[in-house]
């Protein structure tokens, strides 16, 4: 056997192994999407089989007979508003901490970073009570503020390190031209931070979209919360209506799939930069 054929065989073997692992990895997602188009009887009879017809009744039921549309709306509002608020609030802080670089900003920075070590479970119990005291219980404003607060530590870490890489000369030139600090930040610095912002938006956005414990605890019971929380509730309540739950999980997965396909590079970049800093 020549070197050439030997290498060829290794390549093919490696490809086949990788393909097998990939099939196993993709199967649960495929299974989820496929089962959403099967009737309950079909799922029970043969879980592996492909759907015979495109069964849409479970979607119809979920969207007309349950509170699910409200939950979809809540998930969307929470994700979009919390992310916009994060982008409006956190980059500014990271920028000021890095550029001002005084004793007090360094202390604030350490104070923010300490938050990265505090798990949500460590403060969730009093949080619930606090929202009631502040009169934020029952609205989406509470969870939105909690999401922004929770992102401050890691967000500032990310932004300070990226601001460091932006030459000061650009800002100084603008200052001479009479631009205010506020203007300098939003018109000059912020656009240069685009890639970090994109990474923060996609990673935190998904985190909020998928979040379970916090919205379940702080949103009032008796009405629709978020998609993930509703799915969890249906699992307990409609334990025999698998078709319906699969329709719900598919509706939660598909938007993620679409966002991932279009914004793939920002996910990967966000992890790589987060890992080296984190």
């Amino acid at each position, binding site marked *: 056997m020549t070197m050439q054929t030997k290498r060829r065989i290794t390549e093919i073997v490696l490809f086949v192994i990788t393909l097998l692992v990939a099939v196993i990895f993709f199967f649960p997602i495929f299974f*989820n999407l496929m089962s959403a188009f099967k009737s309950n009887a079909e799922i029970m009879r043969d879980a592996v089989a492909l759907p015979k017809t495109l069964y849409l009744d479970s979607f119809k039921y979920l969207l007309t007979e349950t509170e699910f549309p409200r939950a979809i709306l809540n998930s969307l509002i929470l994700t979009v508003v919390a992310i916009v608020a994060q982008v409006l*609030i956190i980059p500014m802080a990271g920028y000021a*901490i890095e550029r001002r*670089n005084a004793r007090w900003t360094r202390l*604030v920075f350490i104070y923010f970073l300490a938050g990265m070590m505090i798990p949500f479970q*460590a403060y969730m119990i009093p949080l619930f009570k*606090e929202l009631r005291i502040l009169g934020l219980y029952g609205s989406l404003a509470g969870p939105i503020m909690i999401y922004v607060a929770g992102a401050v530590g890691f967000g500032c870490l990310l932004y300070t390190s990226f601001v460091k890489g932006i030459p000061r*000369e650009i800002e100084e030139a603008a200052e001479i031209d009479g631009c205010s600090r506020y203007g300098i930040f939003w018109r000059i610095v912020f656009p240069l931070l685009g890639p970090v912002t994109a990474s923060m938006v996609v990673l935190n956005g998904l985190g909020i979209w998928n979040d379970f414990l916090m919205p379940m605890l702080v949103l009032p019971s008796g009405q629709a919360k978020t998609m993930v929380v509703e799915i969890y509730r249906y699992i307990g309540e409609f334990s025999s209506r698998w078709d319906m739950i699969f329709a719900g999980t598919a509706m939660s997965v598909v938007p993620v799939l679409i966002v*991932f396909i279009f914004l793939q590079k920002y996910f990967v970049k966000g992890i*790589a930069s987060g890992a080296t800093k984190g």
Partner: protein
Amino acid sequence: MTTSIVNTDKSFIAAEKPGKKKKKWQSYALLFILPSFLLYTLFVIVPTAGSVYLSFTSWDGISSDIRYIGFANFVEIFQSPRVQNALKNTLVMTITLVLLENIAAIAMALMVDKVRWFRNLFRSIFYFPTLLSGIVMGFVWAMILNYNFGVFNQILTSVGLGDYIVDWLGNPKYAMLSIILSTVWKGAGYYMIIYLAGLQGIPQELNEAASIDGAGGWQQFRHITFPLLAGSMTVCMVLSMISALKIFDQIAVMTDGGPGFETETLTYIIYKVGFGELRQGFGTALAMVLFLIILIITVIQVKFLQKREVQL
């Protein structure tokens, strides 16, 4: 305008009206930081401080009667068999998950790095599960592993392994394993990306030179690739450890801590005790233990990483 203006910040301030410029910037800095500061203080620090206080009480979460009971909650943590079991589960789960996730991640990173065709597609497939909700995918896994109608048992039967069918989630022996494996599926792709970045940072010449010297594939991995991945490994170990300690969603949907209390972990018992059994004082005491563990890991990590940086 002299050149000193466009030099460094210090010379800029010194060049003209030092006091005024600095003061102006200072008020801006305050303004820029204030919103983050307020929200973070109000919704992270204040409730955390509240937890510290509540952990010394027997509060039920509802009544206005918050009684100080000293260290009684912490004493109970060390005496309750249920908590001991949850701590043991947390330890077992964390160690197993860290090992399995990292082994899987390195293997997948090597595959994606070396495979010739469809490299990006494979990377995406391995990574995608990390973007999904633990509740959603936990449900899908519970359906796959379902005793009566699940895909897994169906496949086992059809390939003639029908004797090995078990109740993967209802049997305490396998429930933990099922949670761990579904979490590896969901988590490993994240670390794969980090390892992949590490792999791509290894100079090609090293492997080529070793190959000329007659080193086989395994030897190259053992003596070149693996040692040079150490940096990525520290990061991945710590990240996977912290996320394993916090695992919650999969347990909630796959076993609800059961059968009995068999698969409860520290995070799960905090939730159960605090909101299911209305013993929020005790719940916060458990939460303090979790916080302490994460704190210790982080401090070790920072020390370890600093040491490594010096060496490099």
